[in-house]
């Protein structure tokens, strides 16, 4: 997970406060002025009209997951940290956060306005810091950590000094996260962690991890779980990169061997880690589906795809037109859905269950657009011919399967919709009441 998760690429609302329905207060205007001055001073404005794609112009790499060599990857992360630090120093690092931890205590509207403004500038992509760390672990720390821990880590995270990762999944605990087997055993004022985590995005850059561990195997599986913040530099933490199908290595295996974590790094109560974990997962589901202004949004857009139709000589091809229209209809309507959720949020009302629909549509739309693009490109997708906007689609195409898996698989999302939104009965679970037993082999 290293890029923002847009659901309506490329027709960005104009980056002004006036495009937001409730942006009438003068404080918003003052904020816009302050933010614009900051951005003008520290970043370059993108030439206007970049939303309109001119075929053959500009960067043609389109990837959701990078596959750069480690030096390039590292340089990008450094740039992300530097930009986050600059934001933070000028009061834009944590716009909605409490002031005692370095935030500005402003409204979500301010946050949104800032994002819209920043989308008009060329700035480093900070997804490596923000998506998991700031977006998911930050809110969890705020809700469940002790005061000293909040003071110690939150400012560092929002300054870009501490990247956080999510040490949740294990070989035996994916969709069934409550099946985690990594053991946490209390030893005085410390806990000793032993186990293996897997698919951990950004762990190779992270200073901090949130680990979900088994503290009491004699309780049913949802009960005996405790969550910890883990300093990734502690002895016994070993991060091994995993290469994903796109070719790059952005997720990892993390081995925890006798890692000693102080008790004050515990999140929430002992054995109450499932509730803490829910805080994180809810933030994850809420964050998927926002809008961004990166290369993916630019490519998965009406402007790009219609320019492609023409460039590939398919303007009069009835079959290609029909498929394009189907993809664009869904893409545009999903954009409307997100706009409406945003309006709901800005009106101070709680968003409804539409966010789960948005997540499913997002992965559907990206896959549909990638396969359509591949179809329009034709055989030039199979090798690098040097033609702009052709082979470059392979990175996005290869990234799309992950979108149906990460952050809760499609099937799990449908279970959630069926059970929590529509009120359908759960499947009779066979293992929710019985005491957790550590998996002895392949199956538990």
């Amino acid at each position, binding site marked *: 997970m290293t890029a923002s998760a847009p659901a309506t690429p490329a027709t960005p609302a104009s980056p002004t406060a006036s495009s937001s329905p409730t942006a009438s207060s003068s404080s918003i205007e003052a904020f816009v002025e302050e933010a614009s001055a900051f951005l003008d001073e520290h970043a370059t404005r993108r030439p206007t009209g970049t939303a309109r794609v001119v075929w053959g112009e500009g960067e043609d790499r389109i990837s959701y997951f990078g596959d750069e060599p480690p030096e390039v990857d590292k340089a990008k992360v450094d740039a992300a940290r530097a930009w986050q630090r600059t934001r933070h120093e000028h009061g834009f690092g944590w716009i909605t956060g409490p002031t005692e931890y370095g935030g500005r205590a402003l409204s979500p509207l301010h946050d949104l306005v800032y994002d819209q403004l920043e989308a008009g500038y060329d700035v480093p992509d900070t997804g490596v810091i923000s998506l998991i760390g700031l977006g998911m672990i930050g809110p969890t720390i705020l809700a469940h950590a002790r005061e000293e821990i909040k003071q110690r880590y939150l400012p560092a995270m929002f300054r870009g000094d501490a990247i956080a990762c999510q040490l949740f999944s294990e070989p035996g605990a994916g969709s069934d996260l409550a099946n985690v087997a990594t053991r946490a055993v209390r030893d005085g004022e410390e806990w000793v962690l032993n186990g293996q985590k897997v698919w951990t995005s950004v762990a190779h850059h992270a200073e901090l991890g949130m680990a979900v561990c088994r503290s009491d195997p004699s309780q049913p599986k949802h009960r005996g779980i405790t969550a910890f913040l883990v300093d990734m530099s502690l002895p016994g933490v070993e991060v091994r990169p995993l290469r994903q199908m796109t070719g790059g290595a952005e997720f990892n295996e993390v081995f925890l061997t006798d890692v000693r974590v102080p008790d004050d790094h515990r999140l929430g109560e002992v054995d109450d880690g499932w509730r803490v974990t829910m805080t994180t997962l809810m933030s994850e589901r809420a964050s998927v589906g926002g809008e961004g202004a990166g290369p993916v949004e630019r490519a998965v857009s009406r402007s790009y795809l219609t320019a492609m139709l023409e460039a590939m000589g398919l303007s009069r091809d009835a079959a290609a037109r029909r498929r394009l229209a189907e993809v664009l209809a869904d893409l545009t309507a999903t954009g409307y859905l997100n706009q409406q959720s945003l309006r709901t949020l800005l009106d101070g009302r709680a968003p409804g*269950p539409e966010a789960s629909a948005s997540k499913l549509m997002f992965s559907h739309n990206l896959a549909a657009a990638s396969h359509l693009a591949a179809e329009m490109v034709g055989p030039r997708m199979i090798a690098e011919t040097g033609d702009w906007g052709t082979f470059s689609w392979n990175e996005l195409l290869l990234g799309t399967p992950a979108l149906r898996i990460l952050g809760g698989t499609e099937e799990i999302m449908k279970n959630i919709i069926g059970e929590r939104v529509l009120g*359908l009965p759960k499947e009779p679970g066979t293992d929710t009441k019985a005491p957790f037993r550590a998996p002895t082999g392949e199956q538990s």
Partner: protein
Amino acid sequence: MTVTTTAIAGAEELEDLRLSVRSLLADKSDESRVREVMESDLGYDASVWRQLADQVGVQSLAVPEHHGGAGFGQVELGVALRELGRALVPGPFFSSVVLGAGALLAAQDESAMAAHLPGIAAGTTLATLAVIETDGQWRTHGFTTRAREDGEASWTLDGEKSLVLDAVGADLYVVAADTPHGPGLFLVESGAAGLEVTGLRALDPTRRVGRLTLTGTPAAALGRPGNGTAALEHLLDRATAALAAEQVGAARACLEMSVAYARQRVQFGRPIGSFQAVKHMCADMFTRLEVAEAAATEAARAVDGLPDAPPAGEAAAVAHAVCSEAFMFIAQQTIQVHGGIGFTWEHPAHLYFRRAKVSQLMFGGPAVYYERLLERWGV
């Protein structure tokens, strides 16, 4: 050409409107009543029609105030249409209030509006629109029906119009015909000389369809002859935005029906909704419906010209495609969730299935609406 909306209802007013339409329909137009009237000669319940007009004023919602309406827009009309779609209420609502009034508004003909909108708004005049001809294609130009100018503002029409909604029983027909100046819209009153109206056997018994034969039939020009294509295109935005509201209202009824059944029907010792195959069918219906709902809402806002809405041509075309597909999908899955009972005449699922197919095809069908979407974007 935007039709300005003078009044905008707040969230509370919209909710009040929804509740009053819903309770009236629950009371007076439940499923058994719908089945009764759909098989009657008239095809709808005249007293429900009157109560919708007199008690709630549904027919007048989107008619401008100076023409006897409430002066609201598509957003408010959409609330009522969702309820009418949900209950599959038979009657000339879509034909008269959406297409008839919509055509008068789209043509921007002041004197025709003054003459006919108050009657439509009161529910006393039933208007409808006749565009499609014997080849069954929806088009906005190139009609075989011809209009001949007979003298000062007086015309006669010759031709045949097919697939006209609620043709039998209408008081006023808006007829598209070619003129020497290009396509135009014309008003023909019921009982006019040389007008023959026949009912056709319809796929959806809650939505009547007929045919018009015009032989030297006297007509009045609606708007400037030659302006018909522009007026029809504009009308199409309003009409498909309205249809989208009706589609999502009906689709939501299908989803609710399916979920209720999946919770209660037991097989293999457990409710079928606990089986993932069924649960996921419902989740897919929900997802498509959420997107369709968003598209319908945005289309209404766009047609009303709300400041942060997308262009009406885009939003209406998106909504027509997305809501047509979603409703058809949901109507099919509803039968699947119900199993054999869903395939019976007694179960309402087939009525929704029929409505879904008719709605999907009445303005041309998938090939037409996807192509129209690209055209709206200049592709």
